[in-house]
């Protein structure tokens, strides 16, 4: 209709289609920050309940065995390092080395879950064993759910790496998954200190 000339547009990188990948990473980081507050809530709830408890351990429970969880911790912390290695090889476009280390990280995550399940199986207290049992299963269970999510995300990224040309220009999903994995790792270290190292 109108023929009035439009002012010249000055599009920036933030505008238009095809640039949304960076938004995804921003959004994911914001989400992770928010997610950390749930853990903070559970941690503080645990600390308050434990700090104010008259009898923290339920009758017949000696405390938590720490050797197997320590092995689990070492595996999970190391898996952050193998993930860094995987990302390093992706940056160098050595895709097979990336896949190898990525798969190793996945395996370590799966081992952690296995170790957690074995630990749960051998415990002589349950979810309803006072606030001790409830907080223990809540914290380890909620964290385990995140580990499982991380392993699934990694599997998805591994599959996507076989799409031709998918990872040549850098892949936001890998970055997001790796951030998530380091996050899960840091949460576990805090959890380990709170659950196994803290002695009354």
């Amino acid at each position, binding site marked *: 209709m109108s023929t*009035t000339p439009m*002012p010249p547009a000055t*599009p920036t990188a933030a*505008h238009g289609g095809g640039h949304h990948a960076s938004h995804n990473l921003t959004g994911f980081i*914001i989400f992770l920050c*928010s997610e950390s507050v749930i853990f903070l809530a559970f941690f503080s*709830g645990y600390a308050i309940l434990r700090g104010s408890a008259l009898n923290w351990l339920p009758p017949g429970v000696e405390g938590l065995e720490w050797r197997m969880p320590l092995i689990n911790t070492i595996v999970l912390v190391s898996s952050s390092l193998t993930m860094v290695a995987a990302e390093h090889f992706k940056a160098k476009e050595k895709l097979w080395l990336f896949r190898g280390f990525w798969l190793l990280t996945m395996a370590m995550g799966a081992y952690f879950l296995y170790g957690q399940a074995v630990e749960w199986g051998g415990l002589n207290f349950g979810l309803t064993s006072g606030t001790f049992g409830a907080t223990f299963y809540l914290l380890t269970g909620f964290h385990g759910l995140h580990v499982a999510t991380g392993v699934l995300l990694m599997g998805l990224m591994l599959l996507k790496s076989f799409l031709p040309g998918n990872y040549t220009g850098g892949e936001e999903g890998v970055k997001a998954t790796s951030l998530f994995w380091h996050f899960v790792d840091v949460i576990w270290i805090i959890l380990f200190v709170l659950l196994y190292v803290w002695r009354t």
Partner: protein
Amino acid sequence: MTSTALVPEPLPSWRRYFGFSTDAKVIGIQYIVVAFFFFLIAGLLAMIIRGELLTPASDLVDRTVYNGLYTMHGTIMLFLFTFPVLNGLNNLLIPPMIGAPDMAFPRLNAVAFWMVPVFGFLLIASFFVPSGPATSGWWSYPPVSLQNPLGQLINGEFLWVLAVALSGISSILGAVNFVTTILRMRAPGMGFFRMPVFCWTALAAQTLQLIGLPALTGGAVMLLMDLTLGTSFYRPEGGGDPVLYQHFFWFYSHPAVYVIILPVFGIFSELFPVYSRKPLFGYVYVAVASFIIVGLGLVVWVHHIFPSVAQWMRNLFMVTTMLIAVPTGVKVFAWLGTMWRGKIKLTTPMLFCIGGLINFVFAGITGVMLATVPVDIHVSNTYFVVGHFHYVIYGAAVMGIFAAIYHWFPKFTGRMPYEGLGKLHFVLTFLGANLNFLPMHPLGLMGMPRRVSSYDPEFAFWNVLASLGAFLLGVSIIPFLLNMISSWVRGPRANHNPWNAIGLEWLLPSPPPEDNFGDHVPTVISRPYGYGKDEPLVEHQAEIERALTFAEVTR
């Protein structure tokens, strides 16, 4: 290059409002309409509550039913009216105000919206389960909320927690989207200190959601486990601590008040300059004060539970609570300074702003009273508290929301709302709100507890007044609904800038095309609110406006 981007597209079918649309402007209207549907339901519950309180005796409804009524009234009003309606405004306003074509994550946006009817349905469904709806108040404190006399797994409280958790997830998805959009998708030249205050306050409010909501979700997960799995996080008999829940609840739910009121501050900051024809007084201070409110707002929650905590906590949180009056006061004086010697135009949106501001100042005064430990402990759990927060939520926030709806209605529908009906709506709302909520203050000071269906006859006078006010408020919604429906259908056509306002959204046709500016995002060259300064907001502003006017004349 032709100006096809400036010609309004033919109005798409109304059916898109009933489907899964990823267009922020459709989602915005979906949010607002769904929110008002629930507003009518929760308003009806309020009418029954005030009907019961007309007489001292418990004669209209059963006491258990009454407990369910106030619980559902509060829950629906907050989680299904206030938050969704504000998310609707965010969806409509943020992308055009910053020159973005849509939200950063359109599909996520639609998912977040469609969760609202789902958890709304869950809450309403709780009226029809054998145990009836949740009856422990909108805060669901244990041990009251952990009572499950019928022993059924699916009970009102269970559905309540489920709905609140879903609401939390929906709000988090929304918040991630809004924050990313504001941080990453602003028009060229729009630095943070050229951003409209509404976007500042939306950013601040959504930041609070991201920090606060997970705490409530965590607390609610534990409540659900106590209720259904037999854990004892909050059960004293199992070593748990019911006050712990109160901390989780208020760590979010006090900031939630700022989540509600901050965008309303944004609305006031947008509208006072338009209708006073003056720049916003102290723009930078108003913008920054939003984030001071965020910081302080996160460390005041204990003032809700003064009776449950140690003296040192009372002292500490009394001080932080009082401090929050400072950034808030900065804003109030900025609005007064904006109006001072301005050419004030008393349009419907302006009237709602002024009325909202008056109510807000009153609520702020009673807020400082409540922050004072001795006063708070005296009036804790009385109608004084009920009166205070209704002044904030209805008197200030809902009136601000009405102002926003009247102000931006022409932009997004292309039609002008009727001024006469609007002013009638304002008068009824302002009188109704004050008649309803003012008598609650003397009632509280006299010692009438909240959440009771029968009371001492000495409280009857103020209760009758409050109930009359409530019924007036109930009537006040009629002209609003009439106005919205009839002006959307056959109201006079709106041009692109009917209020002569300054802002990127007013450089778009009414209604804007689906992708707003598309590829022709103008470059911002000055601060917002340049009223009376005669400096353009964007490059080539005169050409853009000429093209818009031309398109309107020739349509």
